[in-house]
């Protein structure tokens, strides 16, 4: 029975060697998509329709590349790599709805887009937890506890700053803070049991 070893962010989060290149290409695909999406919205606002199609195609190519690499990871059943891909996708896509025209179909799609990598993250995390042994589960538990505390403090700080007159924080970032908090928790718990 193959057990995932602990990596920098906890149980099984160290991806397999062969998945490294897939993750790099996935990140390149996401970067191409982000860049093209930003350009597409800018060009759409400017009303320059001649550039819209090639830029939209570039965005779709980036998305297809990221999707293909994620599919390769899924086929390899490398849950650690899938979790990393999910995190990267979620953090990358979380703010893109702001670039799209408000109330447009594009904005709705962009607002819902981060749910796809979030679901990928959750699914691979559950699968990893199922295969984890008792120490790995304990480390995950400690990491989640720390992530919760970090997110709670971030929420309280956000509320306090908002009350003090600072701009309203985007609540979508709370999920990202939770993920980062968990990552930090994995790192600390992992060091304890190394």
């Amino acid at each position, binding site marked *: 029975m193959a*057990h995932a070893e602990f990596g920098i962010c906890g149980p099984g989060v160290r991806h397999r060697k062969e998945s490294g290149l897939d993750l790099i290409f996935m990140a390149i695909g996401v970067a191409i998509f982000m860049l093209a999406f930003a350009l597409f919205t800018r060009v759409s606002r400017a009303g320059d329709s001649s550039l819209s199609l090639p830029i939209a195609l570039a965005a779709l190519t980036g998305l297809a590349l990221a999707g293909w690499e994620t599919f390769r990871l899924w086929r390899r059943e490398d849950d650690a790599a899938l979790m990393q891909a999910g995190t990267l996708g979620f953090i990358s896509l979380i703010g893109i709805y702001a670039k799209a025209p408000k109330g447009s179909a594009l904005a709705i799609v962009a607002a819902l887009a981060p749910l796809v990598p979030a679901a990928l993250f959750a699914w691979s995390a559950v699968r990893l937890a199922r295969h984890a042994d008792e120490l790995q589960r304990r480390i995950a538990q400690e990491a989640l506890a720390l992530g919760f505390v970090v997110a709670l403090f971030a929420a309280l700080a956000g509320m306090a700053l908002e009350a003090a007159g600072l701009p309203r924080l985007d609540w979508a970032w709370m999920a990202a803070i939770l993920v980062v908090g968990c990552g930090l928790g994995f790192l600390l718990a992992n060091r304890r049991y*190394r």
Partner: protein
Amino acid sequence: MKNRLRVLRADREWSQAELAERLRVSRQTVNAIETGRYDPSLPLAFAVAQVFGKLIEEVFEPDGASPK
């Protein structure tokens, strides 16, 4: 909790990875138990004892136990 995991493993010339495979846990778990950073659950402690063909008290003993 103290344990004789390292000694018993060395007697059998098993690597940590080999023992981990027999116990169906990760190598890190074996290492954490050996170094005393992690106390295993009762089922895992029984599994460890069984793998070495010993009684659980021959492998593990509480910190304050008097030497036999």
